[in-house]
Each structure stands twice: as structure tokens, then as C-alpha cells.
């Protein structure tokens, strides 16, 4: 269990972070400069907060009020920095065994061999860092951080320097490791897909603050605010008005919204992810079902396996972006027509108080 609640003023920038997690993976997600790395540095003891406290498994690592500030070397954390910082003068094995200074030689050797095997680095122990590939360096850094018994693992964009194929491998490896380790993992990334894949919980960070801390599904489906929705890649956020009974008016169109059970009243923001919107054939003689409206395609961006369609409303209703897999795109014959009916399913409309 890790609990952090700290504040730090750095010039005009205020870091104000609070969250806690059990033996699960927390992803700190946000743009660069949002304070993710600073948060890790504070947990690791490399950045001294102005106020607040940090506790790990009931052990207080930092507490301004009680004047506790455990130095980094006694925090028992595995920390992989973004630059990796493998010691260039030491072999991979010596890097991995670096933190095992007090161990007997034989024990240390056994532990290093164990980690080399765990991270598929057999036979590379004698190499120095610059003789290793990016992915291998990455794994050595991870092994080094895990060598001594640690109570939490902190990973700062560890895969950012790698190509996509390697990233996928290492993510899989990390998911496996996490199941074996059963310790809190705090993972920093600005990659949305990576965040979702690895996280149990996501802390969405912006300008030094945690905007939302929740289970990953909730962050994606039920963003706490317009800003969170924007940061987590929700393409459609509309301004609207709630009637307090589960209906909202957006651009003169009345929509039913049931996604959260709550029924806010007054000014609200309504979010729906592009891939949750439906497109139906337009029948001039037909009656429009609930949550449907007529719109014209104004842009069609092909991404190979998906299409992103931009719709402009013909009558009432908001302009909307719809993402569609290439198969339904072809079956429906999207390319052949301009005018369609857009459906915003009530279950996927997320209403946020403004």
C-alpha cells in the first residue's frame, strides 16, 4: 500500500498530488510537464516536497509535520528513471548486482543470474551498457531496480525510447512481472494505450494536479471533467443543459443519457468517445429513433484499419467525430453517401457537471 499526499512549489509550477494504491499498478498519465516525473522523484526521495506525507506499507517515508524524511537509499524502492542511467563503467551483471552490496558473493551471484533469466538476458551479463540494445538496456535497468527486496516499483516512461515492437514485448513482460511481484507499481506514461493496458488505476495529471484518480475503465468511460475527457482522447465533448431527469439538450437536440445513473441539472458537459457513436442509413421518409439525428460527412480520414469521420449536423444536434473500423465502413458503404443518421447511444453518453 502506497499513499502519497504532497505539495511542492517550483517557481510558477505547483505540484499537488494525492492518491493511494494497494498492490496494483497506478499509471500517472498526462502530457509532459504535468508533474508525473516529479511525483515519482518525490516518492523516491529525490525531490523534497514542501508539505504533505508519503507512506509505504505503513512506513512513513516522508512527513513534513513529523519532520520525517527517509533518505532515498533507505526507502526500499525500485526506481527506473527515463534515461535508465545504467552505470557505464559496470557490466550488466554488476549493474544488476549494484544494490546488493551487503550480500554474500555467492548469494549476489545467484540473485543476478535469477534476474538475468527472469528478464531474458542470459549470456549478456558480461557486456557493458553501450554493448546492449535499447531493449536490453531497458531490461537491465528493470532488473537492477528489482534486485534488492523492494516494496514498490517506480517506472518513469521506461519504454519511451523504444520502437513499437519492443514496447509491446516489454509491456507484456511487465504485466507478467507485476503478477509475480505483488507490490505497488507506479508507472509514468504519456501514451494513452500504454496507460490503459498496464493500469489498474489511472491518475490523470495536468499542470501539477491529479484531475482524476479512478479505475482505468472509469477514467475512460466516465471522465471527471471536460479536461480529463480531452486528455484521455475523448473526441466529442459537448456543452449542454441537463433537466435533472436523465435528459440533456445539446445543440437543440434532446438526448437521453444513462451512462452514470446520475442526472445532473443545469449546465453540463457531455462526452462520448468517437468509437462509441453509431452511424445508420438515412431514410428521408423514416422517423428518427431516440438519440439520433441527421448529419453530413464533412471529412473522412482513413487510418488503414479505422476511419475517422467528421459529421456536421443538418438540423439540430452537435458536430461529432465518429471512429469506425474498416469492415463496417465498407459494409455500410460510407464512401458512397454524404448524408447519414448519427446515433449517440444513451449508455455511452457521459454527463459531467460543468
Amino acid at each position, binding site marked *: 500500500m502506497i499513499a502519497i499526499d504532497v505539495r511542492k512549489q517550483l517557481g510558477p509550477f505547483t505540484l499537488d498530488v494525492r492518491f493511494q494504491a494497494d498492490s496494483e499498478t497506478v499509471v500517472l498519465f498526462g502530457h509532459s510537464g504535468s508533474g508525473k516525473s516529479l511525483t515519482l522523484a518525490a516518492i*523516491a*526521495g*529525490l525531490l523534497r516536497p514542501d508539505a504533505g506525507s508519503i507512506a509505504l506499507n505503513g512506513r512513513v517515508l516522508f512527513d513534513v509535520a513529523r519532520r520525517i524524511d527517509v*533518505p*532515498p*537509499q*533507505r*526507502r*526500499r*524502492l*525500485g*526506481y527506473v*528513471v527515463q*534515461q535508465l*542511467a545504467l*552505470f*557505464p*563503467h559496470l557490466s550488466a551483471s554488476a549493474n544488476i548486482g*549494484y*544494490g546488493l*552490496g551487503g550480500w554474500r558473493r555467492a548469494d549476489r551471484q545467484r540473485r543476478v543470474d535469477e534476474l538475468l533469466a527472469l528478464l531474458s538476458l542470459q549470456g549478456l551479463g558480461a557486456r*557493458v*551498457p*553501450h554493448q546492449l540494445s535499447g531493449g536490453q538496456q531497458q531490461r537491465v535497468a528493470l532488473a*537492477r*531496480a528489482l*534486485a*534488492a527486496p523492494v516494496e514498490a516499483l517506480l517506472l518513469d516512461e521506461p519504454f519511451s525510447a523504444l520502437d513499437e515492437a519492443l514496447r509491446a514485448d516489454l509491456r507484456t513482460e511487465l504485466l507478467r512481472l507485476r503478477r509475480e511481484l505483488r507490490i505497488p507499481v507506479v508507472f509514468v506514461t504519456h501514451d494513452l494505450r500504454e496507460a490503459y493496458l498496464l493500469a489498474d488505476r489511472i491518475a490523470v495529471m495536468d499542470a501539477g494536479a491529479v484531475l482524476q484518480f479512478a479505475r482505468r475503465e472509469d477514467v475512460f468511460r466516465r471522465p471527471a471533467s471536460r479536461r480529463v475527457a480531452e486528455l484521455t482522447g475523448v473526441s466529442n465533448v459537448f456543452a449542454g443543459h441537463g433537466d435533472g431527469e436523465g435528459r440533456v439538450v445539446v445543440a437543440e437536440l434532446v438526448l437521453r443519457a444513462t451512462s452514470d445513473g446520475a442526472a445532473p441539472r443545469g449546465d453540463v458537459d457531455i462526452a462520448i468517445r468517437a468509437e462509441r457513436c453509431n452511424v445508420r442509413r438515412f431514410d428521408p421518409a423514416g422517423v428518427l429513433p431516440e438519440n439520433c439525428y441527421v448529419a453530413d460527412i464533412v471529412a473522412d480520414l482513413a487510418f488503414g484499419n479505422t476511419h475517422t469521420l467528421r459529421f456536421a449536423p443538418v438540423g439540430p444536434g452537435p458536430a461529432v467525430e465518429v471512429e469506425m473500423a474498416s469492415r463496417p465502413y465498407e459494409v455500410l458503404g460510407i464512401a458512397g453517401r454524404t448524408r447519414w443518421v448519427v446515433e449517440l447511444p444513451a449508455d455511452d453518453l457521459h454527463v459531467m457537471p460543468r
Partner: protein
Amino acid sequence: MTNPAARYGRSLTPSLASVFATPALLLALFVAVPLVALAARSVNDGEVLDRLTTPFVLHALRLSLVTSTLTLGLALVLGVPAAYLLARARIPGRRMLVLLVELPMVLPPTVAGVALLVAFGRRGLIGGWLADRGLEIPFTTTAVVLAQLFVATPFLVRTLQAGFESVDSLYERVSATLGMSPLRTFWRVTLPLARPALLSGAVLCWTRALSELGATLIFAGSFEGRTETMPLAIITAFESSAGLSGAVALSLILLAVALALLLVVRVAIRQQPLDAA
């Protein structure tokens, strides 16, 4: 990892090479000719080899080796921490301290000798206080070491400071998160990463100490077996009846020592596990 220099090699434009070759060759000759002359003279002059083993030469050689090595040891003990602080600490007056370190490098050694004498001399600033307690420094072997320390330490400190500055402090922070105390981090990470600077700084310091003349002459005098180091002995020999032959013998020894040292250090630096990355 691919930098342009590596990709293009050490390429050289031929026309520029032909222009630059002449001055470069002149310089090489200018340095080589006197050294060859020294060696040739000692071979031709039968007396020279006999002189190598006289007590006078042996005393001077032993004193030079002992004092310069002591100086290097003291310089390391005092200079390594100083260099690290100058490289890392954000202290007020850091620029002034750097200036203080650099000053002895540009000061004529004779000035250093005079300064040491008025500080540690019997009527000096603290020499009087020391003399009252039975500690007289001027014209002793201690004075030789102090004179060398004064002029030679800055070479170690400045070189090593630059070396420490080039070590990314991220390594030190990572070392801390791996459970290492700051002092162990220094021994295991910072100092090894600054090894090339440490070696070249130590060599500069040691050779400067070995060749020290001006400050020693004024502060320690020239007493055989006590303060007369090799450079001083060369002057004594030169002014004696033996004349040039004596000086040649002593010079040859110093030349051999310097050459051997240079080779040892070259090998040591090349054995650095790696310098890339």
C-alpha cells in the same frame, strides 16, 4: 551512438594538410632535437654514465621521488574532496574559490616561494607561532613538499573538477535509490566515472611537483639530501666543476622518469573499460 565524426572518420582535406604540415613539422623537430641531443651527448660522453651512480645524484633522485610522491598523496587527500565540492556544491563565493585554486597555476613559482616564506618563515604569519612550538618548516624536506603542494595541487583540482562536472549527477541519484550511501556512491560511481580526469590530473600534479624549482629554492633552499631535488641538483651540477656533463646525467634521468610515467598513464587511460555511451 552514431556521431558525424565517427561516420566520416578523421578525414582531412589534402590541401589543408599540405599547408599545415610545415609548421607542425617544425614544432616536432624543435621538441625532438634537444631531446635527441641529450641522449646522444650522454652516450658519447663516457663520464655521464659514471655520474649516474654518485651519492650526489642518488640523493637528489631519492629526494625528488619521495617528495613528489608525498605531494601527490597529500594533493589527492585534500584535492579530491575540494574538486568535488567545486564541481557540485552551490556555495556562495564559488567563483572566488575557483580563482584561488587557479592562482598558483599562473603565479611565477618564485613568487609562491616568497609567499610561503613570509607565511611559514620564522617571523612569518604563522611560522612564528609554529616556531614557538618547536616546528620550523623553512629549509627542511617538509618545506620542499609544501612548496610542491602549493604549485602542483591546482593542476589536480582543476582537472578533476572538470571531470566531476562531466559526470551526470543522475547516476548518483540512481545509486542512492539502489540503497547506496552518498559516500559509497562517490567511491563506486562518481570517482570511477571521473577516472580519466583523475589520472591526468594526478600526472599533471606529480610531474609539476617533480619539476618544481623556483618555490623550492626560495622556501627550502638547496641542501644535498635534504632539500636538493633533481631540478636543483641540475643547477648545482651545472655550476660545479663537472659542468654540463653533470647536468646532462641528471637531466637524462628526469627525462627517463617522465617518459616512463607518460607511457604508464597512456596505458592506464586506455584500459578504462569504456569511454563511450
